[in-house]
Every structure is written in structure tokens, then in C-alpha cells.
């Protein structure tokens, strides 16, 4: 959910709306925000499943340190979605297990 009418912070103005796809689903995003923020706003919380125990994972540190939120972005696996900014048309995919390279 996007936060509007914050009592302290002004609304972010003049942000350009872009679209990315997350596992084929079209997701609205704003230029300048990380992939993870756009996903969180769209209610998508599972970013991948782990190789060993097949567990779902999402955002944990949101600082680019824990690497839990990694996904495949435009064919490249293991991209930290919490610090990687969206680009219009970006293709984001969940990683199942180790993730692979494509394209």
C-alpha cells in the first residue's frame, strides 16, 4: 500500500510512473524506487524460495546486506531487489532454488 497524506512527510511529487513485470504480472512502479518497494506496494511479499529447504523469502534488511530479497532481473539472477531501482519494462522473476542465467 502506498502511503498518502503522511502527517510529516510531503507526498513525493513529479515521480514518473513506470511498469515492471513480476513473474508475468504487470506491476505499477515509480522511477527512482527499488524493485522491492514496488513489489511491497503491490502486496507481493515472496521474492524467492530457497535451494535447500524450499522456503519462501522476502525483504529482511532492506539495506542490500542480507541478500534475502534476491531475484532474477532481466535475465540476471541474484539481484538484490531492495537496492536495485526499477526501470520501465523491467522483467523481474522469482528465483526457485539457486536461480539460473537466461538470455
Amino acid at each position: 500500500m502506498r502511503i498518502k497524506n503522511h502527517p510529516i512527510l510531503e507526498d513525493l511529487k513529479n515521480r514518473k510512473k513506470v511498469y515492471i513485470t513480476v513473474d508475468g504480472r504487470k506491476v505499477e512502479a515509480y522511477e527512482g524506487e527499488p524493485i522491492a518497494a514496488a513489489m511491497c506496494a503491490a502486496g507481493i511479499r515472496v521474492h524467492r524460495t530457497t535451494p535447500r529447504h524450499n522456503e519462501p523469502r522476502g525483504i529482511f534488511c532492506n539495506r542490500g546486506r542480507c541478500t534475502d530479497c534476491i531475484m532474477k532481473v532481466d535475465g540476471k539472477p541474484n539481484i538484490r531487489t531492495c537496492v536495485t531501482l526499477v526501470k520501465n519494462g523491467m522483467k523481474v522473476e522469482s528465483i526457485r532454488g539457486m536461480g539460473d542465467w537466461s538470455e
Partner: protein
Amino acid sequence: MKSKVSNKSNAGIITLGEFKKIPGYPEEDDFSKGPIAVIECDQDIPCNPCEEICKYGAIKVGKPITNLPVLDAEKCRGCLKCITICPGLCIFVVYRDYTDKTSLIYIPYEFSPLPEKNTYVDVLNRRGEKICKGSIRKVIKLAGSNKTFVIGMEIPKKFYNTARHFEF
């Protein structure tokens, strides 16, 4: 949150008894003079903007700045400025004898949306418990308040020392 774990914790609650030990907590008589600041600060945090902002010199912290603020009730005019500058949001202005039967409590407010004037609200005490009904009488944005609004709520007089927030 209902829980089997005891919810009787006093965490974050300053009891009236503890307040009275704070230097400069207004005496009963002081409330009859009109609106007066009630500073609910009882920890030695290094902080003194309340002293700086008071142009009547009614709040004294001195040095070191971990001293607790002391209110000089004689000098306080209830101007509300200290409410908005306090980083701990722990200063209130209490106008006990607003009318015969009601008091007006000014509180710092940093939520959205703002209440409208004359809204009927549930009045909360320091534990967040509903204690009575009240009415919003003032919605004030002071110059330099940096997004902290001051809300004046009218409440039954007997709650002037316990009413500290509201819900609507």
C-alpha cells in the same frame, strides 16, 4: 492486543505520584491562573529546546542540559510553543478552569487526518484508555512548529490531569 502475558506494565506511564516529584510540576493553585504548561519529562535526556523557545523565561533547564526542565508557573502564559518544539512530545498545556465544568487540554499531534473543530471524540488517558468524551475546540498550527500541530480538546474538568490524547 489481548494476551495472557500481564498487560499491567507501567512501561511509558508516569504516575501522578511520580509527576509531583518532578521539579516545577504545577501546584494545584497554579492551574487557577489560566492555561499552564505541564512538562511530563522525568528522565535526564540531554535536551533543552523547551528552555530556548520560551520567550517568557518560564522554563529552566540550565547546564548540564540533562537537568530536568523546571517550570516557573508565575511566568508561563500558556503560549503553546513548548508543546511543538519538544522532541519527546511530552509537554501539554492545561487550562483547568476553561469553563465552570470543563477544562481545555492542549496536546501535540502528529497524525493524519487532523480532527475538525467541534468533532466529538473519545478522550484517552496516558494508558490509551477511553476515559470520557470530549470536543475538539482548537486545531492550531503555530509558526515554526515544524509539522507538529496543537489540538485543544475540551473535557470534563475532573479529567484535567489524566486526559492526554483522543481518538475519533
